[in-house]
């Protein structure tokens, strides 16, 4: 079977928009990058290599991601801050016309209101994308942070 879809282009485009969405603070748009029956979790390299399932954020559908956004906007208390995502090029691990599996390295700088900018997280996205025409949506994103330590708290998603 010949693959006619350019997975690299679709995924790169989706990830560029994903990072821009979070970094611009448009949290309410973030669930839109996922399929309805998606899985999303943030874990650490240590947990991942040991096969431990829990996440600091764990969702098995898009409604849970919407709830995460509502909680961040309406309920949870944390100091104002922004992220700057710097993403590597996606490595395409498997691809077909329907979708692909990919891995992408990331670095996220957290900028606090007092101006301090620190490397908050580095790691990799382990993704399963589904293609729909010219659009790639996440069926699964496992965010594997390199470090097992989170400074203060994790509010905005990675």
């Amino acid at each position, binding site marked *: 079977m010949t693959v006619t879809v350019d997975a690299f282009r679709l995924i790169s485009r989706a990830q560029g928009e994903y990072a821009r969405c979070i970094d611009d603070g448009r949290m309410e748009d973030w669930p839109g990058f996922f399929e309805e029956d998606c899985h999303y979790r943030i874990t650490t390299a240590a947990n991942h290599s040991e096969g431990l399932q*829990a*996440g600091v954020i764990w969702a098995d559908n898009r409604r849970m991601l919407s709830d995460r956004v509502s*909680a961040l906007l309406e*309920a949870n208390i944390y100091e104002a801050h922004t992220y700057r995502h710097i993403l590597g090029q996606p490595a395409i691990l498997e691809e077909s016309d329907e979708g692909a599996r990919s891995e992408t390295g990331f670095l996220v700088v957290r900028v606090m209101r007092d101006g301090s900018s620190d490397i908050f997280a580095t790691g990799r996205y382990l993704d399963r994308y589904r293609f729909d025409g010219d659009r790639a949506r996440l069926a699964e994103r496992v965010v594997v942070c390199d470090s097992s*330590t989170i*400074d203060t708290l994790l509010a905005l998603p990675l």
Partner: protein
Amino acid sequence: MTSTLPESSAKTEQGRPEWPEELTRVPYWVFQRQDVYREEQQNLFRGPYWSYLCLEAEVPQPGDYRTTFVGDTPVIVCRDEDGELYGFENRCAHRGALLALDDRGSNAKDFTCVYHAWSYSLQGDLTGVAFKDGIKGQGGMPKYFCLEDHGPRKLRLAVLHGLVFGSFDEDVPDIEEYLGDEILSRIERVLGGRTPVVLGRFTQLLPNNWKLYMENVKDSYHASILHLFFTTFGINRLGQRGGIVVSESGAHHVSYSAIDREAEQDAGYSDQNIRSDSDYSLADPSLLDGFSEVGDDTTLQILSVFPGFVLQQIQNSVAVRQILPRGVESTRLNWTYLGFEEDTPEQRTVRLKQANLVGPAGYISMEDGCVGGFVQRGIAGASDEEAVLEMGGASAASSESRVTEASVRGFWKAYREGMHLRQEKDK
């Protein structure tokens, strides 16, 4: 010229202001001073107290070990070939280097220091010194050097329902006596007769003194005020009863809430126990579809053991938390999320979902990660001022109300005794 110092300015021999007599005041310098930090390590963490080390399930086989800390002292917990657990300092008796560099390991036969290859048994006994007899009759240790006289300090260990505690002080009371029946029975309630399975481990680095986190854990007053998640989404159970238990010494506590069947029935809410008067609702309310954790009506139980351990059941999110001081203004909070071997696949999924409530990104816990920092920063210029702890009175006794700071006062009661801050009056 003479001047009279006001009473509050009286200084102790350490040059610190005197600790207030009442339990309702906590001077802010206790969160700021390096000398206090040093004395805590000596008097509390290396003193006659029990510190949580790891789960027994994390060291199941002979040769399995984990490295952790008692306060800021690095330690190794290891299962020897005899099947028993041993704990000792992670420090070579020669020049002080760490003996084990990894968080965990298995199939260990011994621990050998990388620096000069002094080696130790799995019980922490020095068994070998490289080039002990020198080479070709030259060098080597003196004839009178005796291996048995050297070794890392050993810990006394206690295993309680799968939790491994350790103490450097041989004179620490037995763990059962240390905790008392009320605390013991509530540990047993969650862990008794079950085999915990680790679902994940996360560490939160808190920008504050460790005691600010312990105060937060014991503070049942802040829960519905700082953590707005349940209120915002209108998830308030009508029929709830609860209370707090403070151990006699003040050191340990339990805060709990349970479904109040009687109240629910009286109010006619027997089949509708969720009230929603909020503008917001969860798109996926299954987050809170749980099961009775151990077959009773208790939906929340937060339990702390002095100085730095927490066992938590929040609905079906069960976790242990280890609180480790990392300097005057820095604390490591180690979360270990638990399931049990007995879980059905559906129950396991509930636990993974409800873990969203807790941890560094928890719906009802992320605020606890930053609020200690807010205090630490807030008190920067206020060393001589004091925190006010008068909610619910002045005592450190158990109560049926959770609108109280009694267990926070209990912490300070135990703390000032352990730190000899008001020796004569505590007796």
